[in-house]
């Protein structure tokens, strides 16, 4: 795909009469949805597809633009030509972890016409240590088998207690965790309890069982300063090292991201809220780096990340930017 050409074409579109109105009322700057098709003909795995929505960072109050962006992602998933078997939500429904924000997210996500599974992000968690989140969405650690694939969800945003000694209120604790480059919370991970759970969960699975893990943060050391990491990622990879086909899917980074470490293929998805800049480390797969969204163009940076898993085990991540992947909300606008 010629991304530069797409970008040019799209930028040309913005010059056409009528679009300026649409840009002004556009749903947002960075919608992220991706699906993964998994097929291994001749083996026990049946081809299927699932979708992911992540990092909506809903604020309190009515008619916030991030509400519309999440609604738009839900609409886009509901309109997928090949229906997904389920939808994963990758964490950070809320911005400030409050019950009203989580409830708003639940209400919007309830419009999905397919099964929903969720894992938490740090923005969902630190007001009441996951109390409201669990009350609405259930356990933060889970696994299930689907058409021959073993899916695992884990809570990767747990940090050691920094708040008791500092006598911080729940709101102060949440505020400390909200800031990406915040110094207080430190590095997070899944913790010993979940590692033990994981060992037991996969103990009886054969090495040819395809494994897909969902965590909020990547299971490799990308950029610790922004918690683009999971501190016990190496232990998770060690536990899952016996599997021939292991895919890790995560949110948190608000950008498309692709990496391979050992037997793990790692894929990061865009958010429905805002883009984050790539941190100052070199990517092994520069082809997967999307352009920085133009702040002067509210629809710039929108797109869909498709990931296909072919029979041979090769994976291809492709970001489809701009006009090709405009959301239904914007497509309607473009036609008007």
């Amino acid at each position: 795909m010629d991304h530069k050409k797409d970008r040019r074409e799209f930028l040309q579109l913005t010059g056409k009469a009528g679009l300026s109105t649409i840009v002004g009322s556009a749903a947002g700057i960075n919608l992220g949805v991706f699906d993964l098709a998994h097929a291994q003909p001749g083996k026990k795995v049946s081809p299927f597809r699932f979708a992911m929505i992540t990092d909506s960072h809903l604020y309190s109050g009515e008619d916030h633009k991030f509400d519309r962006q999440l609604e738009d992602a839900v609409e886009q998933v509901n309109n997928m030509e090949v229906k997904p078997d389920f939808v994963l939500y990758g964490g950070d429904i809320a911005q400030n972890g409050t019950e009203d924000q989580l409830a708003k997210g639940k209400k919007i996500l309830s419009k999905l016409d397919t099964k929903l599974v969720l894992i938490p992000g740090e923005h969902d968690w630190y007001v009441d240590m996951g109390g409201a989140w669990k009350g609405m969405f259930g356990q933060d650690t889970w696994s299930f088998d689907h058409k021959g694939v073993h899916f695992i969800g884990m809570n990767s945003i747990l940090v050691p207690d920094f708040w008791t000694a500092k006598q911080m209120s729940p709101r102060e604790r949440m505020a400390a965790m909200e800031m990406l480059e915040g110094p207080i919370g430190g590095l997070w991970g899944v913790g010993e309890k979940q590692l033990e759970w994981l060992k037991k969960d996969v103990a009886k699975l054969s090495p040819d069982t395809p494994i897909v893990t969902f965590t909020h943060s990547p299971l490799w050391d990308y950029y610790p300063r922004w918690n683009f990491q999971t501190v016990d990622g190496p232990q998770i990879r060690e536990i899952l090292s016996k599997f021939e086909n292991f895919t890790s899917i995560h949110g948190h980074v608000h950008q498309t991201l692709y990496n391979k470490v050992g037997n793990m293929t790692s894929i990061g998805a865009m958010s429905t809220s805002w883009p984050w800049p790539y941190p100052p480390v070199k990517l092994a797969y520069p082809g997967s780096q999307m352009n920085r969204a133009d702040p002067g163009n509210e629809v710039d940076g929108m797109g869909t990340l498709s990931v296909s898993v072919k029979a041979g085990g090769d994976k291809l991540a492709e970001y489809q930017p701009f006009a090709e992947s405009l959301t239904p909300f914007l497509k309607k606008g473009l036609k008007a």
Partner: protein
Amino acid sequence: MKATFKRTLAIAIPAAITAALASGAAQARDPFDKEALDKQNAQLLELVELGYNLWHGSNPEMSSNGLACGNCHPDAGASNPQTFPKYIQNMNRVVQWGEMVNWCVQNPQAGKALALESKDMTAMYAYAMNLHRGLPIQPGLAAQQTKPIPVKYGKGFPSKPSGIGFDTK
């Protein structure tokens, strides 16, 4: 008497020259000593800290929807003050960095723009420039907009990325 006058004059002229030289030397200030530099630096860092706080939402007038600069620009990433003045597409002209900040304040943040000469704007500029220290000044270029910055200053836990494809294992 006459001899005395000559003697006095002879003494007075060199004295006048010396005074003039001394006066000339006094017109250039002394180099800043450590105390003066520390004082200047303290003022700058005070402003950097104010900028850091503003960047993360300390002025409620700058946002009506909860968003702050830091949402999209952690560690002032992708704000690139060293590339301004720069052509900005949506304004269709070359703008200074503060105008770009105000665009973000007024649009994504739906807040009230800062006066370009205000203390708050200077503080934000001080914070962002402090983090971009050492990068080449390239005004007018949009090409650098995606260049990431390694953070050596500012707050946060130490940044020690181990690179792609491997980690602390």
